[in-house]
């Protein structure tokens, strides 16, 4: 049973007047994470959009303690914060890392691996907008196949990294994927993460209007389309138990998925696939990767 909108706390920990772009979906995710954690949290933020949003000098935009750290060190810093809390006898405060896809997929990967291996009791959230948005939309290893960025002018030639499988190999106590278009579901997942002591990992799909080049008001719609076209898979894994999310369950069958064009056509970063005519070969490659990811996820976890 999902939490009702009315049951969510009214208190906001992400303050008004922060420096996020208009329509930033990161703020929707961050808001609901903090609502679930109710302020009993120390947030570790490496270099990413959130570090800019919450501390545009001389303003401070989050109503919780934040520790800004270097790009590759987010998870290692969280281990240190947890050790300090333990030394002080504090066992209730959550240590949460809020890192972008660059700080997780590329630069922060070895620190994440280390912290998971040390079994640090923390929650690592990777908010994946599939590009280095903060520094001007450079390609990251989370950028999907054929997406345009400022460093891949004709579309990226490689498929994205399947980070969830790398993390799953470390056997975290709780692991989930979420989507900002389903904030109530995300809220529930953070609530669940609170119950499991040990390393926890969350991977959030997060549309970015600036980098993906779509009209700002379509943020929620695009996240939903990602699930409905099968591009994004909502699932969670508690220990060894795999649960396919209720939003994604019916899209296990490729017949029931919406055509991928609906998702691609909305975004400027895929516009070259439709100009002047539809590039059938490249779109078929994207579809093949989506099916491949479904196959790998289902084969690995079930």
């Amino acid at each position, binding site marked *: 049973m999902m939490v009702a*909108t009315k049951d969510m706390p009214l208190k906001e920990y992400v303050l008004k007047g922060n*420096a996020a772009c*208009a329509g930033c979906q990161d703020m929707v995710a961050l808001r609901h994470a903090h609502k679930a954690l109710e302020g009993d949290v120390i947030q570790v933020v490496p270099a990413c959009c959130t570090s800019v949003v919450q501390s545009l*000098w001389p303003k*401070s935009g*989050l*109503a919780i303690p934040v520790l800004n750290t270097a790009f590759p060190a987010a998870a290692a810093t969280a281990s240190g914060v947890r050790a300090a809390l333990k030394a002080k006898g504090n066992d209730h405060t959550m240590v949460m890392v809020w890192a972008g896809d660059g700080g997780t997929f590329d630069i922060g990967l070895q620190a994440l691996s280390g912290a998971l291996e040390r079994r640090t009791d923390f929650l690592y959230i990777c908010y994946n907008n599939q590009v280095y948005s903060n520094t001007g939309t450079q390609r990251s290893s989370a950028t999907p196949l054929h997406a345009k960025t400022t460093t891949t002018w004709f579309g990226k030639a490689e498929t994205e990294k399947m980070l969830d499988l790398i993390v799953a190999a470390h056997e975290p106590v709780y692991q989930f994927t979420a989507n900002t278009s389903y904030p109530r579901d995300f809220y529930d997942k953070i609530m669940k993460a609170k119950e499991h002591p040990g390393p926890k990992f969350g991977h959030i799909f997060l549309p970015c209007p600036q980098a993906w080049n779509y009209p700002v008001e379509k943020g*929620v*719609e695009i996240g939903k389309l990602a699930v409905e076209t099968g591009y994004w898979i909502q699932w969670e894994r508690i220990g060894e138990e795999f649960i396919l999310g209720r939003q994604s369950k019916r899209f296990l069958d490729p017949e029931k998925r919406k055509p991928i064009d609906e998702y691609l056509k909305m975004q400027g970063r895929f516009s070259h696939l439709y100009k002047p005519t539809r590039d059938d070969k490249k779109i078929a490659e994207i579809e093949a990767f989506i099916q491949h990811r479904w196959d790998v996820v289902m084969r690995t976890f079930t």
Partner: protein
Amino acid sequence: MSEKFNEIPMAGNIVEPGNAEKYKTGGWRAEKPIHNPEACLWIKNGTCGRCWIFCPDMSVILTEKNGKYSYEFNYEYCKGCGICAAECPTQSIHMEKE
């Protein structure tokens, strides 16, 4: 954001927690959301709340007082993204040029 160099705290420290609220982001807006209470489900029976849940700037204010529901936008901070208007199931919100 208008302090002179000799008014800035030592080493540029932020001495006041949560002072982002002094930064009025409403000026970024090109279009402002206008609410029409006629069909709004929140005004009717206090349900829905999709605009509140999806607002990235915490600028939708839903209040309940003695069983009466009222609706307000915080135009001081609303950045005018239009997600509330796009997500409203009853089309109670529309965007207007500033």
